[in-house]
């Protein structure tokens, strides 16, 4: 996909530049190319203009200007998203938040931090580490992705099995909506009276407005963390181990599964010395020391009983970090074994893991492709990586079709089309398979309350464009009323 929209006129450019400064207003074709996609590189649209505001006031001015010019707005953090959430809409202005990266305030006593949206996820924990605190959500892209992007996508990560997602850690935020209004929602104090608008905004994928400041809950570091790495003949035994661990009342901080192909790719790309096996689990247990000691030994016993070939514990923190870097670098590692890949993000009930993996395997064989699996096994969040070669005619299409079929398997298993990457442009067509028309209409009510003109990130999340219509809503007469059997009032 490419766009043939001409850049904005010199006049419009000058107006944006007058708000943010000429250096922060991009209209050069070559520079615009940087912004034509996010982490989902198979979708590309050149924006009309990219504006990089430096303050909430500038964001508000830019939004007002874009609305006045009738330009759609696409917010963008670091552009690491995997669903095309930051893919420019046709003829849009992209508002990049990368310049807004101040840590505004830290309150350790009350366990919160206030940051601007361009702050990198990992920087929050680094900033807090000397005091023994951290920020829990840890998407694999955490060393580059921004808090603003995390809020938009309700990002998760390996450790959300125990600690929850971004939505469980955002206490408050400030945002600019389509009217240019600057809103303040929630804050460091809990239970502010009124609707839970935070829940609406977190995970709204940039369709409701632009977040300009975020208050995050921070946590005291656990006293102890134990990590182990267990290998299995196949994903069957590894899946049984996961179910067994959960059945033993253990809530690990993370349990990650990798299959043979994923292990091979990770080995090729990093320094891990993992054996060639059918499947592996990487698991963290954390908390108070005695609790961790007990749960780790229990979990290992369960893994062994389920058929583990070997269970390794890292010798030191350095080895532990190497193990986790291997896991977190899994997507990038695919480049070692395949020219191209598509990553899916479907979720299934945990108890269905073994069955669904088999179903995926069958489909994959039928399509003549390869799929590597690396995923958050504790919460059933699959990341099947469909490997293909774009140079081979028709293979990209085949890979996309296979990815779609995998999502349908997840829906049929009672799961979801996305556990953490978001719907974006990529999975919008599948929303209508997961949700009914009435469900989508109800969700749209929320969007219309924030953004009735559909200025923000049009074309994302919803499978077809939806208008907001009259604020009062159209009165729909009941069949009995039409037939004259019932009246109004």
């Amino acid at each position, binding site marked *: 996909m490419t766009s043939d929209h001409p850049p904005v006129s010199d006049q419009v450019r000058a107006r944006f530049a007058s708000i943010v400064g000429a250096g922060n207003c991009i209209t050069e074709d070559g520079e615009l190319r940087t912004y034509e996609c996010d982490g989902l590189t198979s979708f590309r649209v050149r924006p009309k203009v990219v504006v990089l505001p430096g303050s909430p006031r500038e964001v508000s001015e830019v939004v007002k200007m874009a609305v006045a010019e009738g330009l759609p707005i696409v917010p963008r953090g670091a552009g690491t998203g995997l669903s095309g959430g930051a893919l420019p809409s046709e003829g849009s202005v992209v508002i990049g938040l990368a310049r807004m990266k101040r840590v505004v305030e830290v309150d350790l006593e009350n366990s919160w931090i206030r940051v601007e949206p361009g702050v990198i996820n990992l920087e929050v924990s680094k900033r807090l580490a000397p005091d023994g605190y951290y920020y829990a959500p840890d998407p694999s892209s955490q060393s580059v992705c921004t808090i603003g992007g995390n809020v938009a996508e309700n990002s998760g990560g390996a450790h959300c099995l125990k600690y929850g997602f971004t939505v469980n850690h955002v206490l408050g935020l400030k945002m600019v909506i389509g009217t240019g209004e600057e809103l303040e929602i929630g804050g460091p104090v*809990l*239970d502010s009276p009124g*609707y839970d*608008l935070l829940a609406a905004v977190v995970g709204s994928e940039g369709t409701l407005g632009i977040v300009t400041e975020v208050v995050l809950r921070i946590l005291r570091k656990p006293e102890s963390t134990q990590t182990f790495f267990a290998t299995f003949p196949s994903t069957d035994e590894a899946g049984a181990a996961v179910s067994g661990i959960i059945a033993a009342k253990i809530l690990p901080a993370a349990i990650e599964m990798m299959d043979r192909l994923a292990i091979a790719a990770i080995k090729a790309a990093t320094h891990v010395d993992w054996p060639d096996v059918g499947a592996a689990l990487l698991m963290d247990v954390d908390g108070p020391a005695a609790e961790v000691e007990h749960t780790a030994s229990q979990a290992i016993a369960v893994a062994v009983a389920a058929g583990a070939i070997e269970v390794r514990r890292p010798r030191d923190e350095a080895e532990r970090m190497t193990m986790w870097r291997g896991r977190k670098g899994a997507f990038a590692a695919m480049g070692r074994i395949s020219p191209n890949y598509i990553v899916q993000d479907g979720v299934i009930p945990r108890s269905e893991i073994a069955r669904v993996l088999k179903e995926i395997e069958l489909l994959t064989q039928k399509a003549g492709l390869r799929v590597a699996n690396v995923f958050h096994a504790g919460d059933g969040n699959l990341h099947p990586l469909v490997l293909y070669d774009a140079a081979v005619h028709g293979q990209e299409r085949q890979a996309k079709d296979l990815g779609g079929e995998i999502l349908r398997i997840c829906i049929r298993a009672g799961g979801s089309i996305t556990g953490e990457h978001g719907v974006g442009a990529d999975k919008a067509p599948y929303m209508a398979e997961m949700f009914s028309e009435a469900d989508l209409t109800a969700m749209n009510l929320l969007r219309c309350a924030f953004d009735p003109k559909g200025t923000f990130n049009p074309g994302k*999340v919803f499978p077809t464009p939806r208008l907001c219509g009259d*604020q009062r809503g159209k009165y729909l007469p009941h069949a009995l009323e039409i037939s004259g059997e019932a009246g109004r009032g």
Partner: protein
Amino acid sequence: MTGALSQLAGNADAILGMIPRWSYRPRAVAEASEALRETHLEQMRVAFVGGGTQISLGAPPQALDAVIHTDGLSRLVEYAPSDLVITVEAGMTLSQLQTAAAQHHQRLALDPPRPELATLGGIIATNAFGPRRTQFGSVRDLLIGITLILADGTVAKGGGKVVKNVAGFDLPKVLCGSLGTLAMIATATFRLHPLPEASATSVIAARTGSQSWSIVQAIKAAQLEPSSIAAVWTRGLWNVGVRFEGFRAGVAQQTARLREIAAKIGFSTETLQDTQADGFWAQEGAWINGRLRLKIASLPSEIQRPDLLDPVLALLHGATSTWYPTLGIAIVSGVPAEAESLSRAVLDLRSKLVAEGGSLVLIDAPVEVRREIDVWGPKPPSFALMERLKARFDPGRRLNPGRFVGGL
């Protein structure tokens, strides 16, 4: 005219003294949808009632034509113990759900007062919580899916039945605390947790709020992870209750560590027997009609300030304050000695809290106090947006009109 679904209402259907004309008792989601369709066609103003434990929360309805009771919607819809996920109809009581989950050694980690009466729908609508919020969060952190019935009777779903799911807007969470003003909650899907192998409650007696806070800070510094902490104030004394739950070894170690830490800063610790412990954690739920009940929210470190709550506590007979220090929320209750001076003290407290980003809500209050004090306090900064949200979901303003913040 209404159809066969409704009956004439009586005193038992009253909400804060207002008696509706009609009363509905749907026994299935489809019937509830029909009831809402009917009230939509008749342009009736409707309220939803579960177990009634929080019926006093909110301003009196602006108008009320019909009440929809949810006690006929009490079925277990789906329970997958191996996935730790349960779906129930909204009129099921929390106790019923816990009984079903306990058969598989699981629980919903939510413990608001009066679980034998409180329904899941009511808990969601009022954002009710208890001491375990310390570790497990509030209902929004445990609710993963919902079936709604919109004002016109349309049935819609949000979320799903897997814990991890970011497909579409998070309608389940948006309904949390919405007090029946956006839609009727018909079913709810929750994430469950395993029942812990062991539990131990210790109580540390403190003389002041700031001593209580120093105990809480010491627990945090020592990296202990209690499932509940509450500092209960009665007659000038503070009792800081700390509960650990988990595997036996972990609970024993944490309880021992707590004793050491407390001793180091000069406090002695008493570990309670099970029945005593249950009593301690149920204190906030002790319910007497006619009492004043306030929910106070501030930065956690602020509520300890002695000057803050004292003027209100001094004007209440049998005053109790249950402070959840890690949350920054306190529930204050007692019988007002004299309504006028008490109202002044409460308003003064509210303005102090609001000035620092906090709030004060009347959960329940005698009529004399309600006359003087708005239940919710000043409109929040994003109120205009809340009005727009209400207008989208309930364009006829017929769902629980006037009861929520700013008359929503």
